[in-house]
């Protein structure tokens, strides 16, 4: 059942499909009725491959109306059945992550479809390989080469007198969720690190994320200290933080940003966690950033989904949006990141960021702060490195700086899409140690291969490289908007102009400029040639050269 050869269906395979090799099987090919949330029932033909489900309308110019990688599916349910009156109505209700839920109906043999979908949408539960391991796409760039930690640290000028690279975690024995290569204070020995690790949740010790090129202040990330109810102290940890503080020869205190709300940090003591107290850490100043945990964020995102699907609220849009708290969360994360960036940029002090495990909120804060501080991360490759290095889930709030980023919105959306698609190995598994065990880099393709071999598609033409420019967004609700092009992109009623007319005009102008520059060069050549050959030029210049205002 599983492997009908592709050739038979070639005419149906996606025109712009780059997955061509023998890894792609058509599993199902059936006529169904699709209940479109926006336009009602549509007759269509559904195709299910081992990578995706897609549906072509049989009514209107056979448009592709659905195209979802199976990895995005989060739930499949059978619906209906034979009624007492003998009517047959069978259906499948398919719910997707991120995207809206999808409903599909099939005549009689829904069992096939249900089973196949379940198997391939949840391969691990059926001991099947994740699609990324089957994908044999070839790109002319190897995205796995993009991030080389040693090179990235070298770019930052590391190691230096105060910071060293350590291989203590080479086999992930110090901390199984940390990468193999870490940057730590020169004055801290590997033994010191081991002792500090005992006092940090999941052994996630403070390690360097970024160093300011001039004032040498640093951003350091870690997990919470294991203070507990009794208020335990650890001399090594206290000393270690002091060593970090001293690396840039600042007399001021080390600033600790605890991403959590104060109450949550206190509550964490009950489970053995906590935060750095004033008593124990004399040379540190602690601030809470009030960012909520992943559960709250997830709930909030679910509410966003509710207000945009299937209908977008009209007159109560603003209060519904407010009630999701989503933009409020974004505001808080941004505010926190601005504070981290400002502290470091002004050279006032080094910054240590943690939440509970230093996993989600910490990564958001450090990567956003780095995006503000270091223009390198605003280039395509820099951003890829940042994602690879710090893990980051969003970036569109920087839309308010349309000339500061090398990449465009499509780049961000592509990354988000493939977060769940399972087509690439980039976002598989939790940490470096598991990825290495699974040989992800050898057995899968990197998302960056797709992007970097086609960079033009992801470039922002307005990008102006400004080295050392610190970007400070304004973390006010008055500036925050829901990312309509991402969250509401499936709704045909909210259709953004693509491409953006300002961008389109600019690209036209760029082309015109290049053309003129080339002509000018030719003219220069011709005029120097004319000195030797005095024959008149064939056409009059005004004919050749339409004026700007008539040109576009």
């Amino acid at each position: 059942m599983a492997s009908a050869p592709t050739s038979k269906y070639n005419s149906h395979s996606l025109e712009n499909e780059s997955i061509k090799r023998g890894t792609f099987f058509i599993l199902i090919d059936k006529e169904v009725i699709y209940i479109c949330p926006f336009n009602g029932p549509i007759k269509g033909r559904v195709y299910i491959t081992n990578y995706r489900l897609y549906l072509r309308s049989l009514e209107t110019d056979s448009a592709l109306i659905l195209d979802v990688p199976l990895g995005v599916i989060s739930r499949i349910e059978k619906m209906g059945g034979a009624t007492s009156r003998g009517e047959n109505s069978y259906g499948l209700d398919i719910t997707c992550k991120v995207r809206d839920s999808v409903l599909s109906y099939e005549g009689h043999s829904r069992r096939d479809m249900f089973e196949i979908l379940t198997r391939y949408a949840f391969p691990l539960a059926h001991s099947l390989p994740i699609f990324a391991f089957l994908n044999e796409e070839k790109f002319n760039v190897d995205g796995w080469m993009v991030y080389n930690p040693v090179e990235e640290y070298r770019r930052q000028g590391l190691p230096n007198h105060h910071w060293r690279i350590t291989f203590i975690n080479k086999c992930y024995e110090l901390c199984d969720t940390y990468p193999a290569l870490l940057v730590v204070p020169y004055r801290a020995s590997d033994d010191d690190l081991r002792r500090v690790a005992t006092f940090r949740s999941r052994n996630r010790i403070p390690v360097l994320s970024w160093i300011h090129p001039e004032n040498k202040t640093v951003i350091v990330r870690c997990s919470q200290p294991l203070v507990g109810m009794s208020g335990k102290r650890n001399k090594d940890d206290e000393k270690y933080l002091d060593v970090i503080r001293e690396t840039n020869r600042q007399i001021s205190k080390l600033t600790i940003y605890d991403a959590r709300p104060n109450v949550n940090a206190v509550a964490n003591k009950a489970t053995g966690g906590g935060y750095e107290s004033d008593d124990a850490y004399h040379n540190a100043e602690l601030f809470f950033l009030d960012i909520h945990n992943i559960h709250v964020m997830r709930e909030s995102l679910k509410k966003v989904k509710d207000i945009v699907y299937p209908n977008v609220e009209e007159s109560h849009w603003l209060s519904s949006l407010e009630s999701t708290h989503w933009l409020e969360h974004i505001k808080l994360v941004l505010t926190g990141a601005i504070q981290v960036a400002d502290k470091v940029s002004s050279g006032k002090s080094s910054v240590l960021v943690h939440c509970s495990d230093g996993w989600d909120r910490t990564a958001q804060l450090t990567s956003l702060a780095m995006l503000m501080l270091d223009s390198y991360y605003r280039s395509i490759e820099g951003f890829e490195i940042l994602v690879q290095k710090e893990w980051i889930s969003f970036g569109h709030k920087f839309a308010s700086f349309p000339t500061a980023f090398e990449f465009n919105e499509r780049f961000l959306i592509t990354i988000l899409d493939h977060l769940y698609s399972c087509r690439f190995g980039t976002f598989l598994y939790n940490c470096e140690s598991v990825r290495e065990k699974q040989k992800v880099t050898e057995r899968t393709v990197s998302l960056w291969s797709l992007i970097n071999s086609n960079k033009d598609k992801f470039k922002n033409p307005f990008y102006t490289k400004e080295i050392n420019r610190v970007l400070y967004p304004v973390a006010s609700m008055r500036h925050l908007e829901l990312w309509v092009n991402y969250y509401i992109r499936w709704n045909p009623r909210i259709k953004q102009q693509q491409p953006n007319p300002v961008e389109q005009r600019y690209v036209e102008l760029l082309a015109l400029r290049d053309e003129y520059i080339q002509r000018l060069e030719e003219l220069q050549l011709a005029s120097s040639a004319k000195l030797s050959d005095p024959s008149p030029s064939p056409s009059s210049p005004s004919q050749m050269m339409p004026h700007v205002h008539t040109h576009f």
Partner: protein
Amino acid sequence: MLGKGVVGGGGGTKAPKPSFVSYVRPEEIHTNEKEVTEKEVTLHLLPGEQLLCEASTVLKYVQEDSCQRGIYGKLVCTDFKIAFLGDDESALDNDETQFKNKVIGENDITLHCVDQIYGVFDEKKKPLFGQLKKYPEKLIIHCKDLRVFHFGLRYTKEEEVKRIVSGIIHHTQAPKLLKRLFLFSYATAAQNNTATDPKNHTVMFDTLKDWCWELERTKGNVKYKAVSVNEGYKVSDRLPAYFVVPTPLPEEDVRCFQGRGIPIWCWSCHNGCALLKMSALPKEQDDGLLQIQKSFLDGIYKTVHRPPYEIVKTEDLSSNFLSLQDIQTAYSKFKQLFLIDNSTEFWDTDIKWFSLLESSSWLDIIRRCLKKAIEITECLEAQNMNVLLLEENASDLCCLLSSLVQVMMDPHCRTRVGFQSLVQKEWIMGGHCFLDRCNHLRQSDKEEVPVFLLFLDCVWQLAHQHPPAFDFTETYLTVLSDSLYIPIFSTFFFNSPHQKDTNMGRESQDTQSKPLNLLTVWDWSVQFEPKAQMLLKNPLYVEKPKLDKGQRKGTRFKHQRQLSLPLTQSKSSPKRGFFREETDHLIKNLLGKRISKLINSSDELQDNFREFYESWHSKPTDYHGLLLPHIEGPEIKVWAQRYLRWIPEAQILGGGRVATMSKLLEMMEEVEHLQEKIDERHHSQGALPAEAPSLLRSSARLSSLFPFALLQRHSSKPVLPTSGWKALGDEEDLAKREDEFVDLGDV
């Protein structure tokens, strides 16, 4: 630094604590009075302008980087404006100041621009009006263009405080006579100053010729005629001297009810359908009179219902649409969101911003206007019907909707000249009572309704959604809205053309000289230098390519084809109906609640309006054709440039749409420059022309609120919120949960 007392300390970098206030009251800081010196700044007076009162050693507060500074200077009040004369260095050496208004300086407030005056007494803010018993230590002026001025009077002599405060209150709040408007003193004194190009080709609609021209332009002359029955305002003082009615309509009919009950032409669509307006007949109790009215209206309807006239759809705006009261209430709530005293207030309201915005209903009113305009457009365009707008005086919502429909349907109205002509036609000649609606004479607060501003905001929504479709920029719309309060232009200072003409005429008889030469707002050179006027022109706008006569016919046809959408009949597919039946049982059986929501939404689709709206939006936009706005929740936005421009916290340096637009302008200049160079090569001329100076040159860090933005220090300090998190409510449980080890790969 002369005359500058630095009285505040910044705290923007401190971490926000709930109690943290970044705003330091200058009163709390001791200022050495000996240092208080004033640098003389001369008062610039317009022709005819007179100084009324003044006060020295006034401290003007400047908001910046979430702290406040003060500048000492003189506060004066003339019969035209309130002005602060101080040595404000911040205004110098700046890109922004190149967009300077020649009439109104940065620290000038025209008397008509004053909205509300407050006094601070023992740290308490109270509104000021009438006779005062006690004089405040601080004066706060809220302006109609949403600026907020704080003037400290602590160091001012007592008698000067009395004089300036009572002077300002009297001259801005006491009811005025029309004759006392500064407009007349100015016009008399500036009699000989003739502007270079007073109208910029704007059609004023004050002659029969102008109306004939408009009829011809829209091909309305087949079925409609311009009449001069109201010449000298013999019939009505609400109607203009010349206007347009259906050709068969007898002129006597116009006289019957002083022009009421008459369908008056606004505009003709390419398919021959017309947009008409009518003011209601007087309300009568008497049966006999009602009978007369009824038969009169019957006669009128017979005239316009007969071929060649299309079926008429009547839109009664007095009963089925927004009321003026709605608009007034909404705007007075809405504007309060922007009249912000300090940074603390900004951040305190930030968390609730969306619900505050929604509870004002201003954006919803905009949406309703846009929606109504789309409905009217659908009738004209897709249903081939005439639309008759009905309103008591046909001079408020009629003006708004007829001009909005024309902006959407007639690309000519999206050029600057076309837009200005439209405002002349529908608003000025249409008899919109600007004097009352702006409350220029302070005679009745009840009458003050920002109908014209609402129109500009609707146009802004369209322009914002379709950037290449308009010849002018949002800056143009903003300065136009500001011009409502500048009493040197006659445009917005009369209730009707009749009122304007009679007041000018009598004046001229009294002085036995030629009639007053009043300025029109359309002469932008009065307010802006040519360089600044560049910012009113949209670089993205492309004029419609002009073709020679032979080709024109063909394109006209093509243009029409593009405009006209398939009729609704052919569009609604019978297949869907059949199909619906087929799937009905499926839907009922299978899909309980969850899907019923979806099915309802597709029922709505049957609606003509939806069909028209969605069909238009699913096609690529022709910027020279019909233009419809998006009206979904997220698409209606706050016109940041107009409403947020004076709030330092609201701007993003080097950000916003301004950033891409300035890149675009730079590139345009570069291309033009290259083109010149190539041309020169061909003409073998040696010397290169000097590079044209650009307003936007080296503009990487322009404010997102360019060219306004008060904060001009281009600080590198980030702006940080000072207020915390709102209660989470039902999410409290989740908030307490432990973080978990989450793999995004299998969420």
